[in-house]
C-alpha cells in the first residue's frame, strides 16, 4: 500500500472532474486532488485537456496524514519538467514498491539491459505504477513481462531471458 509523501513523483489516474479540480487515484488511501492551474502554461482561459481516465505524472505538493493529498504537475520554478498528462497508448501496470526502488537506483542493471533491446519509453511512479510504451504491442508486452518477472529472477536468469529475446 502506498503512502503519499511530499515531493514524490507518481502516476495517477483521473477518476473525476469536479469543477476546477481533478480527483486522481494514486493507489493510496485517499484520492489526490489536482488543480487545473497546476500545469505549465495553464491559465483560467487556457485549460489543460484532461479527461476522466487519463494518466498523469505529477508530484505531491501536500501529503500528510491529516489532509487529502494534493498534486501538481509543475515544479517550484514553474516548469513542467516531464510532468503532466502521459500520452496515448502504452501500458500501465502495478508492481511492488520495492521493485520501483530497485529500478530507480542510480545504476540499475535491469534498466540498462532493457535499454539495449529496443527503443521504448518508461515512466515509473513511486506509487508502484509503471507505464511502458514501445513501437509495437508485442515489444511493450515483452518489457512489461520482464519488469514484472525481474522482481523474482536472479541476474543470471534475467540475462538468459534477454539473450533469448535479442536473438529473436
Amino acid at each position, binding site marked *: 500500500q502506498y*503512502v503519499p*509523501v*511530499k*515531493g*514524490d*513523483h507518481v502516476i495517477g489516474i483521473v477518476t473525476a472532474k469536479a469543477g476546477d479540480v481533478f480527483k486522481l487515484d494514486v493507489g493510496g488511501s485517499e484520492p489526490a486532488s489536482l488543480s487545473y492551474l497546476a500545469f505549465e502554461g495553464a491559465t483560467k482561459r487556457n485549460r489543460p485537456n484532461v479527461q476522466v481516465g487519463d494518466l498523469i*505524472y505529477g508530484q505531491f505538493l501536500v501529503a500528510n496524514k491529516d489532509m487529502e493529498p494534493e498534486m501538481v504537475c509543475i515544479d517550484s520554478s514553474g516548469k513542467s*519538467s*516531464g510532468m503532466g498528462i502521459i500520452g496515448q497508448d502504452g501500458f500501465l501496470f502495478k508492481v511492488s514498491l520495492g521493485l520501483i*526502488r530497485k529500478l*530507480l*537506483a*542510480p545504476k*540499475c542493471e535491469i*534498466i540498462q539491459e*532493457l*535499454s539495449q533491446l*529496443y*527503443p*521504448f*519509453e*518508461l*515512466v*515509473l*511512479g*513511486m506509487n508502484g505504477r509503471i507505464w511502458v*510504451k*514501445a*513501437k509495437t504491442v508485442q515489444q511493450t508486452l515483452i518489457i512489461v513481462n520482464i519488469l514484472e518477472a525481474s522482481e523474482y529472477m536472479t541476474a543470471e536468469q534475467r540475462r538468459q531471458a534477454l539473450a533469448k529475446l535479442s536473438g529473436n
Partner: protein
Amino acid sequence: MAGEVKSKLSKNLLRMKFMQRGLDSQTKKQLEEEEKKIISEEHWYLDVPDLKEKESCIIEERSFVRCEDLVYGRMSFKGFNPEIEKLMIQMNSKCKEEEIEVDDKMEADVSDEEMARRYETLVGTIGKKFLRKRDQRVLKDDDEDDEVDEDRNSNIIPRKKAKKIFLKPQD
C-alpha cells in the same frame, strides 16, 4: 492644575496612544516595566530547572528518493522520445552538479576584446542618432577637419572650409 488632571485620568486612558505621544521616553519605559511586572506575577511558571535542549540528530525522511539517491522516474531509451531524453540528461546532471561547484565561465561566442571594440563604436553611433541637427553638423565638421589633418602628411593643400555665415541678400 495640569498635575491634578493627570492623576485623575485612569490608567487605561494613559496607556492609549494619543496620551503616550506627549510622554518622554523615561516615563514610557517606566510604564512598560510596570506592565511587565503585573503580567509576570499572574503568569504561572514551572518551578523546574530548565532542561537543556539537545540537538536532535534524527531527521525524519519519508521519501525513498532522498535516501537512495533515486533517479528521475521518466525515462526514454534509444531515442523513443527525444524530449524526455534531454530531460534525463538535465535531471541526472543536476544531481551531480550539486556536489561539484560549477565555477567555469561559459565559453563566449564573442571574445571580450571584440565586445569592447564593438561597444566603443556602438555607443558612438547610437549617440549620434540622438544629437540635435546643430550638433550633428558640428560633428561632421570635426570629422572633416580630422581628415584634413591626416592628409597634410601626404602633402595635400588643406582646403579652407567656408564658414557658413549669414549672407545678406544683395539688393
